[in-house]
């Protein structure tokens, strides 16, 4: 049996609320409702869940979902030992047994036959059958399931089934407003406020180009990267190009436009 200590959030993570998401999540947790956190990549979803876990005092078990994940990766499997076999709980089972918050990040990456394994935990039954072991795990009273999902990543093959969607309450996330985003970048990295505001201005220009050549705008995470580079002593324009322009596009016209934006905004 694992202990929960390795999953407790040790220090308070920095999170600046955009609206009333904190209150809403606390209410959902009080009712132990499963929650879906939706938003573009890099806008603060994982950081929010970590913050809420710290605030509510619960341990947080995070699973990064991917295409190769099978149901056994979530639930558990038998392992071979010299003397025989041994059952090893997966992260979902551990969370259900011990009463942690289980956070499935980018759940849409996993295949749909893997995702349906969470269904029994998300309705009123709150049980997890372990078929191979022949055991029925009843979820701890403090257990909650949280998933995150990027709705902009549209693909026919990768989408949530309706039967999965309808088991969750959802919170929408988006990039913060300009002043808040500048404050976040400044606090995260120690960059002066004016420079952070200039980086946010460049990101706003790129977000306006979404759909006109850019698939997605610049995320807050990339802004933090750029700020970190500037703190390391790199010139602001070079840091902005490296962290904010080069990763998101290879289109020559868009790159040139964003380079010009950087030159115009960062004097």
């Amino acid at each position, binding site marked *: 049996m694992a202990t929960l200590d390795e999953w407790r959030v040790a220090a308070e993570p920095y999170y600046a609320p955009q609206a009333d998401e904190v209150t809403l999540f606390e209410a959902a947790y009080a009712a132990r409702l499963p929650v879906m956190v939706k938003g573009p990549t890099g806008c603060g979803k994982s950081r929010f869940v970590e913050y809420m876990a710290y605030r509510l005092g619960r341990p947080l078990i995070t699973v990064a979902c991917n295409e190769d994940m*099978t149901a*056994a990766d979530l639930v558990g*499997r*038998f*392992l*071979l030992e010299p003397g*025989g*076999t041994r059952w090893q709980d997966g992260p979902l089972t551990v969370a259900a047994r011990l009463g942690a918050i289980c956070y499935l990040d980018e759940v849409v990456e996993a295949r749909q036959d893997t995702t349906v394994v969470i269904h029994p935990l998300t309705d009123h039954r709150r049980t997890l059958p372990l078929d*191979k072991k022949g055991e029925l795990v009843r979820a701890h009273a403090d257990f909650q399931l949280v998933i995150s999902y990027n709705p902009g990543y549209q693909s026919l093959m990768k989408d949530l089934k309706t039967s999965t969607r309808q088991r969750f309450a959802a919170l929408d996330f988006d990039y913060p407003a300009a002043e808040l985003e500048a404050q976040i970048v400044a606090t995260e990295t120690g960059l002066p406020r004016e420079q952070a505001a200039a980086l946010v*201005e460049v990101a706003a*220009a*790129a977000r*306006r*180009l979404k759909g*006109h*050549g850019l698939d997605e705008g610049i995320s807050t995470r990339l802004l933090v990267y750029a700020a970190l580079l500037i703190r390391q002593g790199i010139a602001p324009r070079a840091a902005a190009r490296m962290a904010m322009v080069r990763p998101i596009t290879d289109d020559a*016209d*868009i790159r*040139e*436009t*964003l380079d*010009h*934006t*950087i*030159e*115009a*905004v*960062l*004097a």
Partner: protein
Amino acid sequence: MNSAGSFPAYGGHSAPPRAAEPATLRHAHLRQRLDCRFAAVDDVFDDCMDEAVRVLSPAGLEACLAHASWLGKLGRGVDPLLSFLEIWPTVAHHAGEAALAPLQVATQALQKSPNGPAIVALHQSLGAVARRLRSPELLGGYLTLVVELMQRTSISIHGRHATEPSPSLQTFLQQAPALVSQVPLKGLRQWVMEGVRLHGSHPQRQIDFFKLATPDSRAMLQRHRHGTLLVDVQRRLELTLRGLWDEPTPLVPYPVRPADEVDLATVTMPYRQADGLRLPEVLDDKPGATAVQRYRAMLAHLAAHRRWSRPQVADNLSPLQRLAVECFEDARIDHLVLRRFPGLAPVLLALHPLPDEDACDPVRESCLRHRVACLSRALLDAQHGYCEGTLREFAARFHELMQGGESSTAAMLRLALEWATRTRRQSDQLALVRFADTHVDWRDDNRHLWTFIEAGDEEDTAPDPTQTRAPEEGGLPPRHYPEWDAATRCHRPDWVSVYDTLQPAGQAADIEALLARHASEARHLKRLLDLLKPQDRTRLRYQEQGTELDLDVALRALTDWRAGAQPDPRIHMSTRTDGRDIAVLLLVDLSQSVNDAVPGTDETVLTLSRAAVALLASAISALGDELAIAGFHSNTRHEVRYLHIKGFAEAWDDAPKARLAGAAGAYSTRMGAALRHASQLLSGRQADKKLLLVLTDGQPADVDVADPEHLIADAAQAVREADRLGLYTHCISLDAKADAYVDRIFGARCTVVDRVAQLPRRLPEVFLALTK
């Protein structure tokens, strides 16, 4: 030497006695050296020689006079001589004295041909040309071009000696100053040669081409212009506008005249209209700012006006007052732009003129624009260096207003009116206005800033240069595609018009009857298809042999074995991707030749093609691939018709079948344009593999193209462009003599079906072979 002995008509070795001694001439000895008897020369000789003595060296003067005296003895009257004497000092000053030698060669060439009268025209335009081409080599290149043009366009009846003068040489020489100022010499040569090649046998069209009277000639010249064309950078500028200013407005170019010739009183400035922002069609780089940066400064200024300016009532304001208000408001807008985007400051400072404070003489000329330009510089640049009291006072007040926030148009209006009242002078009304260093080229004409309560009688500043096209009677407007010219190795812009139409429908039952007739091929095809059933990407678990070990099942097997039960050996798994993700566009040649009967059967090429296409379509719809079918034919380059028979999204049911039944053959085959249009359509599909099948029965040809090689080369280029777009092109040719040209167009990707009767069977087979 070209003076003595060549021409017995006039010149002799000894000067015959003159009627009157021109003793009043200052340069009498030079006049004697000139050695000709024309009285008309005496009138202008002194002035010309003053200029020549000032500019030329002694050796150059001697050479000049020698050439002039030779010109006088040509037998063409006094005009060549006079025109030469008039322009030569200018030409030598700008292009150097070494330019005389190529000029002599060129004049000799003209003299020997029937184009002698063009010598005068050559001289007359040479001054302006030399001002542009400031070196003997460039001027020599220009003269060589003139001679080449003359030689290639002079009409010759028997093919050896030119017997008629060139129809377009004089026109070209007249246009030469304007042309040379717009395009570099290399581009000019290419343009001239294109014109000669296109219209070498049609004199009137030649003249129109060189006079820039046709849109084609203007478009071709435009391609060679130096500077950055707006259409080349348009996408970037629109992205900048959208990203930085959140404005989705389109950009429209307006024509510009070459920079040196422009009269600043009539220069067109960028402006905003409801359907788009108007920007100059071409811009050159300037020191401190590239052309793209200049465009972006114009965009920033126009977008900032929309955001921060409010229209003011102009009825009670004089033009002077309006000019002042515009100056202050433009400066305020520029300040707000720089506040938001401080990185634009170096560009704006480099572009803004820096007039010298005392450069304008208030007695002789109107200093109004000059004062305004100084003020504008002072408002923009903190280090302006001007000392005049009122200017500094108003600059300080302006900065004070801007410190407090964004200020407003109304506040600028008040400030400007005060400035105008304090600095007015009587001399502002003078007709001679100083324009030098007063034009700020990124600013717009501020037409949005003024509203009028009463209708005034001012005329519009500039006519709207966008042409309105005559409305089409129904149908879509044509799409224009370039055509490849193998001789110049570049595209002729917007050369071909392709019209999209829906093929009119026939009877769908015909197709069913056709398929019934070819039932044996249909059965054969079905057998082939059954071997190709598509499968999606799947994991096949529980395999005894496979690519990966399925860990769960293996563990279970091991546990069973440890427990003493029989283990299941199927512990592997593999994934298969048998999916087909193919998009096919079948392009069918529907030219006149498909109506020919096929020897040995009682069908035409068209009916057999229809049967083949029907079989192929049913095969592809069974496989589930995306299919589009279209026919094409052309009637000169102005009317290439692309007939849609089946679209990608349509199922293969009655409607496409009816259209296929209605397909008929007419006109000619202009394959390159149809290939380009089809490539555009196919590359828009999302599919892993895109296949462009072309079914043709003859070589590309059209009624307005005499040289068959031209369209073949164009089709080959279209296939290369399709390759670059990621499309696989394959041709099925029904022409027994196809080998002569088809490998130049399609390379190895061609199937020749000799016996057309086999087409219904071969076409689907070719397709399946390609996509196995």
